[in-house]
């Protein structure tokens, strides 16, 4: 029993250090695994990791401040276009710079959209974000001199460095190393984003947000500024969406406005709810589900003999995600991660760990 308590005590004493070590451990593990995956898996991982960042942003907004946004697909699009336009015109900018720009632009737009959130509540806010999601494609058309209108923008491809090619004993970079490199980049960025969010959830700001969610009046009495908390929640959520969108664009090498429709925003919300609102692991799960959803759909189509070009095949994904959203919310609103945590916590309540105390005599 004693080593367990040593770990718990160490975690309490140095929370940030423990989080950093855990992030480093998981990131390194994931990086190590990409060495063995085939190119397709690595590519799926890269897009899934980027989506996990977006889901995490919405998770903060919903889990911490209790608001729902259906505009995160559009925020993702804002980041995607910011990254694409910058990457096309400034090819020498390092990746970190482009991604930082996408994050900042996302945060700025999130601030603008979040301003009315200080006055709007629940359903009003959700409805407003739906309108924003639908307004994204027209917005891209309005700025068509920058955004190329409906047509896609091709971004410069990310080429793996030479040492990665030599690592897999290939003379030059190939599909294997390229996709491995894409997955590695995504994993590292996701690790940084998750580390930041883990700290934010536990910080003073995160605690204030949760209080706002639980009881607005109590929060106000405790000195939390409601308007500020709401705007900050929106900004953080939009910044993460922007980062995820920028990363997705650079990984895929192109961006098109029709990707960022209302359906994408609904998909993000479904993934969040299925994974578990307000949990880090839930966002990761959501990203993984997103990465493999196309494979699963293909598998189901293969098993049932539904043609992917038929009406049913083309809409199978929408039906499954929509039904999952309804069923999870009605039957297990905590999502996968939240439900598992609930079960574990109940076990701990039944059989609590007893700390060996110095004062009582050992039996």
């Amino acid at each position, binding site marked *: 029993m004693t080593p367990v308590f040593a770990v718990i005590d160490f975690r309490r004493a140095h929370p940030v250090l423990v989080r950093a070590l855990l992030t480093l451990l998981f990131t390194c593990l994931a990086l190590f695994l990409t060495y063995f995956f085939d190119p397709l898996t690595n590519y799926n991982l890269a897009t899934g990791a980027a989506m996990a960042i977006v889901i995490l942003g919405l998770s903060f907004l919903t889990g911490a401040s209790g608001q729902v946004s259906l505009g995160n697909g559009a925020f993702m699009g804002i980041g995607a276009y910011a990254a694409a336009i910058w990457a096309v015109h400034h090819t020498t900018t390092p990746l970190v710079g482009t991604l930082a720009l996408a994050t900042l632009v996302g945060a700025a737009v999130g601030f603008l959209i979040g301003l*009315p959130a200080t006055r709007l509540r629940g359903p009003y806010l959700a409805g*407003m974000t739906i309108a924003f999601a639908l307004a994204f494609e027209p*917005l891209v058309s309005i700025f068509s001199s920058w955004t190329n209108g409906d047509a896609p923008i091709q971004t410069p491809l990310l080429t793996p460095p030479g040492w990665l090619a030599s690592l897999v004993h290939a003379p030059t970079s190939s599909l294997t190393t390229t996709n491995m490199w894409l997955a590695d980049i995504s994993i590292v960025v996701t690790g940084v984003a998750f580390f930041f969010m883990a700290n934010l959830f536990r910080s003073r700001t995160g605690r204030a947000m949760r209080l706002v969610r639980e009881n607005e009046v109590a929060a106000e009495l405790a000195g939390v500024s409601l308007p500020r908390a709401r705007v900050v929640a929106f900004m953080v959520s939009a910044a993460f969406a922007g980062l995820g969108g920028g990363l997705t664009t650079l990984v895929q090498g192109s961006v098109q406005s029709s990707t960022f429709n209302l359906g994408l925003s609904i998909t993000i919300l479904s993934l969040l709810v299925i994974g578990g609102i307000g949990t880090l692991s839930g966002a990761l799960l959501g990203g993984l589900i997103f990465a493999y959803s196309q494979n699963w759909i293909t598998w189901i189509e293969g098993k049932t003999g539904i043609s992917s070009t038929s009406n049913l095949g083309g*809409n199978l994904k929408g039906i499954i*995600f929509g039904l999952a*959203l309804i069923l999870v919310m009605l039957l297990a609103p905590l999502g996968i991660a939240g439900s598992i945590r609930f079960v574990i916590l109940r076990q701990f309540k039944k059989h609590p760990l007893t700390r060996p105390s110095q004062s009582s005599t050992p039996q």
Partner: protein
Amino acid sequence: MDAFLTSRAVSDLLAGLVSGVVIGLVALSLVLIWRSTHILNFAQGAMAMFAAYVGMTQLSHRLDLGAFTLQLNYWWCLVIAILAGLAIGGVTERVLVRPLYGKPEINPIVVMVGFLATLEALAGAIWGTTTLSVPTPFSFVDWQLHGQPLALSPNDVFRIVATFVVAVLIAVLFRFTNIGLQLRASAVAPEVSRLLGVRVGRMLTLGWILASGVGAVAAVIQATSFSTGLTPSIMEAPFAIAFIAAAVGGLESPTGALVAGIAFGIMQQFVSDYLNSNYVLLIALGVLILVLMIRPQGLFSKRVVRRV
């Protein structure tokens, strides 16, 4: 006078009125549900679209009724669509919404968004995503005034009249019937109504049934046009603008929703004509934000004070 009637501004006004009535109807159906259950139904547009598909795909089918056969024309299909809308509304309230009363605010939002996605995908799976053209019961050719087209056709007049018939029917039901009184009572004071013998649960279901029927009419009217036809996503944009109109008019006020919906339709037409249709939603969003900053309860609603 004739030159004035065929001028660009009047043409926009008339065309805006024609598209505004659909928005007003959807806004009205949103308000009906909001008043009875305090849920903003994000699937309202999708439910209406589904009902319209159920009705309009029966077109020119034959119905054998033993003694005589019935060739289903536009009007029968409209009736089928309305019946389908009523049924969808009732089933949705009983199955999906009933477990959500008293839950946190975001639960019904999430469930209804899921329902929206499911219905749109289901409609695409059953009837395909290509446009299903719907015949117009009246001519869609604009009337002419001295060789100049007036931006109004018999079909447009039908759309406007149908909307006002529905609106008046709803108003009469709520104002002058016993059921209407019970509906209003259970929305305002459910506990007291229950004590006085009103079946509040049934009234909530009825509210959803009525709203969904109104939505079905709106979707059929929207599809009954030379240019649009029926697609699974047909109600997305009207729903977004209708929500904005309902919020601007005040979610408690049916009249406000209808008026604001028509006003937004006219705004949409003017913006598309003089500026660019890409700006419609952005301007509507701007109006929403501006109005809610000044009057958070909307233009036509009374102020509600939230107490601790």
